[in-house]
C-alpha cells in the first residue's frame, strides 16, 4: 500500500531573469493506492498528473509532504536506500514506439532485467527462460513469435504489451500507467485496458492510471477510484462510477462535457459546461484556482480557497431525482469528496439514446 501525504513539487521558472516565477506543479496532494486497487488520476495537459506519476516511480524528487511505501516514509530515507522501495513501483510509458530499444530483440529486452532479478533472488539457471515465457503469456503474446523479433516488427498494441511485460519482470506491486493507451489505436485500447484489469488479479499488482480520457478509467474494474486534478490540487475524489454519475466540481463537469457524443446513438447531457478560458498557469488567483475559468463562479469564490470536503448528507445541492443511493455506486469504494464552495451535481455525460 502506498500513501501520499501532501505531496508538493515546485519547479524553478523559465524565461527571462525578471519574469522568472516558480511553477507550482503539485500543491499538496493526498492519495492512497490500496493493495490490488485501481486508482486513476485525470486532468488536462499541464495539471501535474505526470509529475505525480514520476514522483511515485522515484524519477522525480518531491519538496513537500511525504510518500509512504509499505509503511516506510521516503522522506526519512537517503536516496540510495529508497531504491528498493521504488523497485516495487514500475512505470508503463506512454509511447510504445520509443520505450523499447530498437536494436535489441524482445528476448534481450526482457532477458536483462530478469537476469538481474535472478542474481538478486538466486534463482536456478532455467528460471529466466521460463519466467520470460510466463510473462509474455500473461500479457497475451505468443513467446515463439515475439522473442526473436525487434520492436519495429510488432504493432503498437503488441509493443505496449511488451512494455507491460518488461515492467512485470521485477515483480512490482504497483504499475504506473501514464497515458498508456493514448498513443495506440482506439480499436486496440480495450484489449490493453482489459489486460491491465486482469493483471490486478493474476499478477497481484495495483494500478495507478494517469489519463485525460475518463472513459478509459471505467475499464480498470468496478471498484476503481478517481482523483480529478487541477493545477496540482485534487478537486474531486471518489469512486470512478460515482463521479461519472454525479460529477460535483465544475471542473470535473467540464472534463466530462468535453467527451465527444456519438450521433444517432447518444444524447448529450443537458447541463454541459465549457470552461470560460484556456488554462493559464501564470496567474495566481487569490481564491479558488478554477474561478477564472469556472462558468459557475460566484463572488465569494475569489475570497477563499475551498477545502476538499464531503457533505454530511452525501447528496449535494440538486441531485437529480431518482439518482442512485450513495451506497449503491460501488461497494467498498472511496467516499465522494470535492473542493468547491458551491457544489452542485449536473447531468453532463451523454446518455444512450432510446
Amino acid at each position: 500500500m502506498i500513501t501520499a501525504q501532501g505531496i508538493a513539487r515546485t519547479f524553478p521558472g523559465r524565461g527571462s531573469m525578471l519574469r522568472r516565477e516558480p511553477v507550482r506543479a503539485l500543491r499538496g496532494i493526498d492519495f492512497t493506492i490500496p493493495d490490488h486497487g485501481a486508482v486513476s488520476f485525470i486532468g488536462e495537459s499541464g495539471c501535474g498528473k505526470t509529475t505525480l506519476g514520476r514522483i511515485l516511480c522515484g524519477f522525480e524528487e518531491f519538496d513537500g509532504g511525504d510518500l509512504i511505501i509499505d509503511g516506510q516514509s521516503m522522506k526519512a530515507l537517503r536516496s540510495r536506500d529508497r531504491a528498493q522501495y521504488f523497485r516495487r513501483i514500475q512505470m508503463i510509458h506512454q509511447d510504445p514506439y520509443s520505450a523499447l530499444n530498437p536494436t535489441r530483440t524482445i528476448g534481450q529486452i526482457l532477458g536483462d532485467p530478469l537476469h538481474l532479478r535472478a542474481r538478486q533472488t538466486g534463482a536456478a539457471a532455467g528460471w529466466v527462460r521460463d519466467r520470460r515465457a510466463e510473462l509474455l503469456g500473461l500479457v497475451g503474446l505468443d513467446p515463439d513469435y515475439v522473442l526473436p523479433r525487434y520492436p519495429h516488427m510488432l504493432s503498437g498494441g503488441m509493443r505496449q504489451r511488451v512494455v507491460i511485460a518488461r515492467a512485470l519482470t521485477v515483480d512490482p506491486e504497483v504499475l504506473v500507467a501514464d497515458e498508456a493507451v493514448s498513443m495506440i489505436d482506439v480499436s486496440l485500447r480495450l484489449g490493453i485496458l482489459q489486460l491491465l484489469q486482469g493483471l490486478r488479479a493474476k499478477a497481484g499488482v495495483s494500478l495507478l492510471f494517469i489519463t485525460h480520457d475518463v472513459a478509459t478509467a471505467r475499464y480498470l474494474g468496478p471498484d476503481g477510484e478517481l482523483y480529478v486534478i487541477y493545477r496540482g490540487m485534487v478537486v474531486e475524489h471518489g469512486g470512478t462510477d460515482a463521479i461519472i454519475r454525479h460529477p460535483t466540481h465544475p471542473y470535473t463537469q467540464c472534463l466530462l462535457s468535453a467527451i465527444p457524443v456519438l450521433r444517432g446513438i447518444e444524447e448529450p447531457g443537458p447541463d454541459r459546461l465549457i470552461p470560460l478560458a484556456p488554462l493559464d498557469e501564470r496567474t495566481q488567483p487569490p481564491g479558488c484556482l478554477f474561478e477564472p475559468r469556472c462558468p459557475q463562479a460566484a463572488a465569494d469564490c475569489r475570497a477563499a480557497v475551498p477545502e476538499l470536503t464531503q457533505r454530511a448528507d452525501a447528496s449535494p445541492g440538486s441531485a437529480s431525482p431518482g439518482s442512485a443511493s450513495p451506497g449503491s455506486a460501488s461497494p467498498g469504494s472511496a467516499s465522494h469528496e470535492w473542493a468547491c464552495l458551491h457544489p452542485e451535481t449536473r447531468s453532463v455525460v451523454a446518455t444512450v439514446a432510446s
Partner: protein
Amino acid sequence: MAAPVKPETATGAAVRVRDLTVAFRTQEGPLPAVSHVNLDLVRGQITGLVGESGSGKSTLALALLNAVPAPGQVVEGAVEIDGVGDVLALRRGALRKMRGADIGYVFQASQNSLNPLKRVGKLLLDLGRSHGLRDGRALIQQSKALLADMGLDATRVLSSYQHELSGGMRQRVGIVFALLLNAHVLILDEPTTALDMLSQAQVLEIIRRIHAERHLTTLIISHDMSVIGDLADRMAVMYAGRVVEEGPTASVLACPRHPYTRALLAAMPRITGDTAGARALPGRPPDLMSIPRRGCVFEPRCPLATPACLDDEPPDTYTGDHRFACFVTAGETQ
C-alpha cells in the same frame, strides 16, 4: 423504400473519388494501399474517414492532393474536384496552385509541422509569397482575423515560435495555414490526436464553426470513432485500403452493417453503457504484406465469415444512401 443511390448518380459532390487505386512498389511487386475506392465529399458537409493505423486513410487523403509520396503511385482511377477537374492530371504549377487555393490540408501531427526556426507570422508570409501574393500587409490582416476567429491572441501568435504555443494552439494555427488562401475544401488528418479532452472539444467546435461560416466541404480523418461520430455528417469506414461502409453518420452508428464497423464500435471505451459488453477487436490490423489477395479483406478477423468470403471480394450493397461491402450481412433485413 428509397431507390438505391449510387455514388455515380449522387449530385452535389464537391470532390469525387472514382475507382482509386494507390499502390506501393516493393520487392514483392506493387502492393495496393488503397484499392478501388469510390467516395464523394458532399458539398457543404463534413465527411469523416475512420479506420485503424495502416488502413490507407492518409494515403487516400494525400491522393486528393495528388501528393502520394514515392514509392507510392496512383495506378488507377480519378479524383475530380469542383473548379479544378481531375487532380491526377495536373502537373507542376497548376498542381501547386491547386494545393492551398482549392484544397487546404492540415497535416497529421501538425503540432510539429511548423518550421521551428521561424516565427508564425514569417511562415504565413512565406506561404503567401509561394502562391504569388505580393500584398503582405493584407495577408497579415487576413490571418489576424482568422486567428482571432479561432479564439487566439493574433498578435502574440504571429510573433511566436512553434515551441511557445500549446498543442491546441498549434493545431489551430495549422487550420489557419490551410484556410489562408480561401480553399473551399478542407482536409484534416487526425486533427485532435495527442490533444487532451478539453483542447479536443475546443478544436472540434472551431472546425464545426469555420466549416459552417465558410461553406466548406470538409474531410476529417481519425482513428477515433467518437471524434467522427461527434463531428461528421457522413462517415466512411476504411479497412485494408477499402471503404467497407459509408453513409450518414447517424445511420452508420445506429445500424452498422459491416462486421468491421460493428467490431470497432464494440471495442470503443465509452463513458456510457455497460463496460462488460465491450469486446476487444480480435487479431491485428493487416499491413500491406498481409492483406488477403483474394476474397473479403476482413475475413481473417471476421466473426461472421463463411467459406464464400474466401473466394470473392464482396460488392457494395445499398440501402438508401448507406452502403456496405459484406456478403453475410447483405442478407439481413432491417
